[in-house]
């Protein structure tokens, strides 16, 4: 028994007892079940496993603190109405916002943040990290950290453009179908059914094999694949709005379709559409990352997270985690966006329990 193990259990038990004493039920349950799990882990994995748990808990605590501070920061800066909303955000959503904020900064100011250019060869292949290169070099000797920063601009930018394209197409068609109705509505509905019954990755691969993996093709392909999903939702949301009395009144006033969509229907179906935008962005981002991992995304030498994983994958067999970093960057952003979307959906649905 080392001091670490004794301290570890003492801390956990102290936290559980304190929580139980002060009637904090959820904290108690969490702490005590962690204690029980730790018994098993300690027996199976030894001190190493317990240390890993401690490190994870420490990281989690750090993340929670960052999220809390960031939420307070936003509340302090935001106007009163928004601040009120922000107060209801759980820590996970605050964490998501923090991640999105960080990525946005990295993407926008990439050339100033990154110490080297994205295609600049500065050392030997797979050079280890030193004070010059934070994360070492990649397979051609380019600085991993700089490429990661530029990747925020390229990968996220591509996914964002593609999502916006899908949204403009899908939401536009959905709103039009809801207002017009009739054969246009029917036709678009069936068309969406057909597109949605092809698996997205397969459809993307088919289109890329034919038109070649260039950036415009990727954007158009993704837009075609995801527009039907957006169309479905917009059609459903707008369908509920269209039957309202004020729409009837506007129609009787003699307003045209354009006015109806812009001034009456869109403002009343905005909330679910924004949440959907976040969700779609996650799907698109994962799809594009998958494509570039397969070598069919943004072409080299442009830095792109998916292809960075593939190019450095050989390092994994030496137990080096470098290839995991861009993959983690992808996962982190998707997790962050999902957390924010989760909170928004929760808020707008009013929680059905």
């Amino acid at each position: 028994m080392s001091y670490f193990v004794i301290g570890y259990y003492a801390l956990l038990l102290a936290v559980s007892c304190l929580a139980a004493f002060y009637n904090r039920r959820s904290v108690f349950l969490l702490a005590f079940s962690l204690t029980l799990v730790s018994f098993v882990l300690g027996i199976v994995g030894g001190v190493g496993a317990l240390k890993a748990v401690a490190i994870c808990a420490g990281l989690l605590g750090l993340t929670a603190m960052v999220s809390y501070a960031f939420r307070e920061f936003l509340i302090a800066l935001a106007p009163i109405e928004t601040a009120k909303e922000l107060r209801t955000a759980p820590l996970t959503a605050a964490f998501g916002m923090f991640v999105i904020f960080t990525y946005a900064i990295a993407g926008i100011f990439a050339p100033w943040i990154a110490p080297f250019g994205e295609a600049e060869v500065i050392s030997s292949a797979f050079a280890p990290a030193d004070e010059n290169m934070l994360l070492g070099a990649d397979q051609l000797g380019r600085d991993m950290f700089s490429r990661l920063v530029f990747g925020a601009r390229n990968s996220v930018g591509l996914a964002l453009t593609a999502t916006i394209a899908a949204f403009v197409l899908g939401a536009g068609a959905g709103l039009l179908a809801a207002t017009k109705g009739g054969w246009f509505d029917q036709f678009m509905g069936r068309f969406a059914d057909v597109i949605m019954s092809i698996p997205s990755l397969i459809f993307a691969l088919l289109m890329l094999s034919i038109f070649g993996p260039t950036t415009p093709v990727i954007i158009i392909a993704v837009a075609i694949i995801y527009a039907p999903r957006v169309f479905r939702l917009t059609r459903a949301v707008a369908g509920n709005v269209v039957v309202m009395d004020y729409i009837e009144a506007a129609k009787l006033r003699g307003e045209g379709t354009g006015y109806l969509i812009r001034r009456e229907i869109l403002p009343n179906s905005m909330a679910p559409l924004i949440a959907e935008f976040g969700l779609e962005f996650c799907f698109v981002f994962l799809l594009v990352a998958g494509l570039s991992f397969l070598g069919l995304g943004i072409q080299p030498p442009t830095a792109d997270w998916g292809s960075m994983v593939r190019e450095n994958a050989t390092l994994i067999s030496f137990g080096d985690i470098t290839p995991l970093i861009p993959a983690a960057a992808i996962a982190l952003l998707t997790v962050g966006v999902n957390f924010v979307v989760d909170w928004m959906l929760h808020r707008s649905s009013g929680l059905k329990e």
Partner: protein
Amino acid sequence: MGDILGLVGKRLGLGLVILFIISIIIFFMVELLPGDIAQAVLGQGATEENLAAMRKEMGLDQPAIVRYLGWLAGAVQFDFGSSIVTGKAVSAIIGERFVNTLFLAAYAAVIAVPIAIILGVIVALLRNSIFDRVANVATLTSISSPEFFLAYILILYFSIKWGMFPSNAKISDGMTLADLLYRTFLPALTLVLVVVAHMMRMTRASIISLLASPYIEMARLKGAPPWKVIVKHALPNAWAPIINVVALNLAYLITGVVLVEVVFVYPGIGQALVDAVSKRDFPVVQACCLIFAATFILLNLAADVGAILTNPRLRHPK
């Protein structure tokens, strides 16, 4: 009973129609190529005679409709022509690989489905507790991670640091089942992680919306014990959503398998597709796409049919 058969038949017919339209899309998409297939295969430097000979050999001198009908007739009999890169029959290339892919997907499904449903129900019963919240964060994280991220993490720990499982899922004939299961454990585990997260969330959502319905409230109010509320009142109505969740996620497995196969160098149809795409081997791409789409539609169909069979309300559409 005739009622049900009619509904199922109608749904099957719709599935066939969609599959037919998809075959049209897949075939005529290649026609959109700048130039034509012969040009794409031979490249810019090809002479006129070579191009003409190639076109003749591939039947490109015939109108597209005729070629489409020929291709469709072949596809129905699992004959997709021959690869333009190796010249081998496409069905020979992908036949065995398709079985491998189905094996991997089934392996993952057998592990994932029971775990996911049990966990999903537990989380739904414990909703709003700390476990529910932890599970929510964990599943969201798992869903949000790209498959290759999970796959490389598993390789790093299970195969390189701890040396428990091989990172390369190469399989050959004549391997015993136990050996096969051992070799393909990591790819299957990757798929399990993603699919369990999806399935758990969907199961949780459908069980919660079920538990919120008035007849459950009624059963509770009349004093039925909690297990009886679940088993006798909730479960019969829960089958339809659960079957739906399972079928949809199996359909999801079919796509997820592509990336996982590439990471683990598993000889499945997904890898054949990716290879063919980078070599621009169109007959193979078309065949793989058609097979994937057909499987996808079939599973969605199974979900609908299962829902119709278990839920009498769906048998009488308004």
